[in-house]
């Protein structure tokens, strides 16, 4: 009896690798954990040299071993001959999971009422079952930073891995308070305010922010001295920023605003990350001097000004990088976060180069968000969050074959793929 059981288990284990492609009629394929051995791959570690004919051992959610010449008989083996392994890509800024259908207001959960709402937690509003999540992760984007928006301090962003059924499963150990820096520029052709009006409004906003900050400083001081303060959730959260426990994600785009934001951040001695930074190339030196990291994107954007070069947005990341800025790339999208590699590809073509562009969506965002010990490259001890492709993941002709998140093999299926399978050859066809 026992031998039959063993043979059965062995049989299932050996054929297990075939089950990872697509779906068998009627059966639902779930993410599965376990021990996996990826063999004969070209391993693009990102932080170290690329390994030819390499192997990776995945166990207990971690990369247990990386190298050549080792085996693991008790692991599910995936033959990766002719294939490439990359660390899972990180999109450091989007609304994935916070909205389902953008035109249906009931499905929008990224914006709250009020200017000061830093206590709003993006993490808990994320829908782990959003249809867009499986659509995204099959592209190799495994990790994503969910951003609240609207108002001055819209909320606290959270980094999530794109696998799991609860926010605890998905949480990837980074939170940051978002701040929309006041804009001093004309917002598009419909903005008919005069120069003075714009200036006044910007000053008013900045004054408001400074007042909030001052209050937060006081709150933090009193709170750390163990005073008993009245319930003030907004200040509680801001105090964490003042204390440096949570970084500030400063969303700012126009050149003049970026300069103002840098000055402000330095004057408050706040721990900050600049996000958006569409015109960063205009003030790249100043950003580099201030040693502020940048999360920019989407790269596939129109230039900010009518008088700008047509490729202003494409060349933006490269120009900032050349000036010495730490640059990560984001999509700032919701349902098409899967286009992160293509944004990186354009950045690569327009000055950044393939290597740096790959870093900009793997190790660099990991470092900026303080999770580089777990994510962003293929190294022993890091999370087994990676993907296997048959070529350069930035190229549209490449197929992504397998995706692992936290050591779980993700089913390479989603609504788009299922619809493809159903309708490629519709039955009945034209006639009944």
């Amino acid at each position, binding site marked *: 009896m026992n031998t039959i059981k063993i043979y059965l288990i062995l049989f299932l284990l050996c054929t297990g690798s075939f089950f990872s492609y697509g779906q068998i009629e009627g059966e639902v394929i779930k993410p599965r954990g376990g021990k996996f051995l990826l063999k004969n791959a070209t391993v693009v570690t990102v932080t170290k040299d690329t390994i030819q004919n390499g192997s990776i051992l995945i166990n207990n959610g971690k990369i247990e071993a990386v190298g050549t010449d080792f085996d693991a008989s008790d692991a599910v083996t995936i033959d990766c001959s002719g294939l490439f392994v990359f660390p899972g890509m990180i999109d450091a800024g989007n609304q994935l999971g916070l909205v*389902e259908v953008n035109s249906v207001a009931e499905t929008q959960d990224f914006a709250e009422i009020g200017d000061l709402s830093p206590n709003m937690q993006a993490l808990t509003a994320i829908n782990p079952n959003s249809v867009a999540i499986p659509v995204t992760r099959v592209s190799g984007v495994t990790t994503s930073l969910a951003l609240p928006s609207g108002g001055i301090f819209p909320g606290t962003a959270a980094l999530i891995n794109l696998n799991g059924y609860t926010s605890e499963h998905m949480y990837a150990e980074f939170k940051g308070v978002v701040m929309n820096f006041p804009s001093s520029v004309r*917002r598009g052709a419909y903005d008919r305010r005069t120069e003075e009006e714009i200036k006044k409004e910007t000053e008013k906003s900045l004054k408001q922010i400074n007042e909030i900050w001052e209050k937060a400083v006081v709150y933090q001081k009193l709170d750390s001295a163990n005073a008993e303060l009245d319930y003030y959730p907004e200040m509680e959260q801001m105090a964490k920023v003042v204390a440096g426990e949570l970084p500030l994600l400063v969303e700012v785009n126009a050149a003049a605003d970026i300069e103002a934001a840098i000055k402000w951040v330095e004057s408050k001695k706040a721990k900050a990350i600049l996000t958006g930074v569409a015109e960063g190339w205009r003030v790249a030196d100043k950003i580099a001097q201030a040693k502020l990291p940048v999360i920019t994107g989407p790269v596939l954007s*129109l230039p900010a*000004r009518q*008088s700008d070069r047509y490729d202003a947005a494409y060349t933006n990341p490269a120009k900032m990088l050349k000036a010495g800025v730490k640059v990560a790339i984001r999509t700032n999208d919701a*349902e098409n976060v899967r286009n992160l590699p293509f944004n990186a590809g354009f950045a690569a073509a327009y000055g950044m180069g393939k290597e740096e562009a790959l870093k900009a969506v793997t190790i660099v965002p990991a470092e900026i968000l303080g999770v580089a010990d777990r994510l962003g490259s293929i190294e022993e001890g890091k999370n087994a969050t990676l993907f296997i492709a048959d070529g350069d993941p930035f*190229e549209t002709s*490449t*197929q992504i074959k397998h995706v692992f998140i936290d050591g779980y093999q993700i089913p390479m299926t989603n609504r788009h793929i299922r619809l493809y399978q159903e309708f*490629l050859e519709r039955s009945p066809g034209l006639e009944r």
Partner: protein
Amino acid sequence: MKRIIYILSAFLSINLAVGQTPVKKGNVLIQNATVLTITDGVQEETDVLVENGIIKKIGKGLSAPSNTPSINAKGKYLMPGIIDAHSHLALSVVNEATSPITAEVWMGDVVDPFDVGIYRALAGGVTVSNAMHGSANAIGGRNITLKHRYGTHNPEELIMTEAPRTIKFALGENPTRVHGRGKGIQPRSRMGVEAIIRNGFNEAIQYRKAWENYKKASGLKNSTAVPPKYNLRLETLADILEGKLIIHCHSYRADEINMLINVCKDFGIKNIVFTHVNEGFKVAPELAAYTLGASVFADWWAYKFEVYYSTSYNAAILAKNGVITSINSDDAELIRHLYHEAGKTQRYGELSDDEALAMITINPAKQLGIADKVGSIEEGKQADLVIFDKHPLSIYAIPQMTFVDGVKYFDINEDKNDQRIKVSPTEVVEPIFLGDHDHKCMHGVEMFEETGEFFGTH
């Protein structure tokens, strides 16, 4: 005298057609390129000779008259100018949203040659675009096919006069929101959209009959026949019934696509292209059998409820089912990298290079009725050409030069930063346009929408 003019025009490359707006035409010899002809395979190390705006010869080792500029394209790729079958570039107004049928309006009246977006499209290799009415109405206005001859003050120079007439239809959420929910007039539902369209066609039939009767009667001696009222809207609808215009219908849901296919069958309309059609793949056999195809997004979905159940494999499924499929942008940002959008059909559906490139060249040309003039590199066709430094379907490809009618309108090495033709005399602080795509399909209809809802939608 005529002969002298002909010879002169060959030298000066100027079209001296009397009475028409002169269109610039050029000569050029492109040498040693990898030529992606689209209709005749890939030809390595091949020359293309352009004379007076027409592709005169394709071959190896061609020679050209001494005053024809030549370009060494060794190691580079030459493909036909990209055609976008759904765009709102270069239009001062997009929607006349005051009535559910506005077939009487014509986008040719509102062409704006100063739109810097045209230059940006040229920098992305796009030479022809279908400047369309918006999607606010069940039957919108007549579109205008444009050639991106950027740099002129005269809107007529942008119009591709030899292109056949096309007209915009729209189904689904947009017309029902603008008219039904926004103003309380039909249509309010997909039922109403069909009714409005059928009403329009039936009225047009009566209108045409009345005019035919009048023409017959007034030809007789001592006729006292009185002309009926002239109605440009019904004129246009009657022309559609006679096959004189190609319908481009904005639609998403499989059921509404099917509805319009049936309506067209009832009225004998064969010239219809469906655009967007995110659920087109669900009715691919019907589209293949009864229409001039589908013009789709590469991967946009989920921005409205009617595109929630769509797939990025749409283009591939349609193509594999024999539907003439093109990829469009409907967006000033997306149009700049249609070559990349076409490449997505290789990620989602593993289409071949030729199949993918056809989606932005010969297929949209067919859908606009200009496939005999543009859309591929063939002798006798107009010289709308793009040179890429790498294969256009690679993410790393960068367009180097773009030609329209053999005239170079974009050259990455001679590209000045500020490409605006006109500047406002009072604007000191330039406005900044950030991130959010200004989806022009619904431009100008905000006043009709329910209070408080502003849509950044298509």
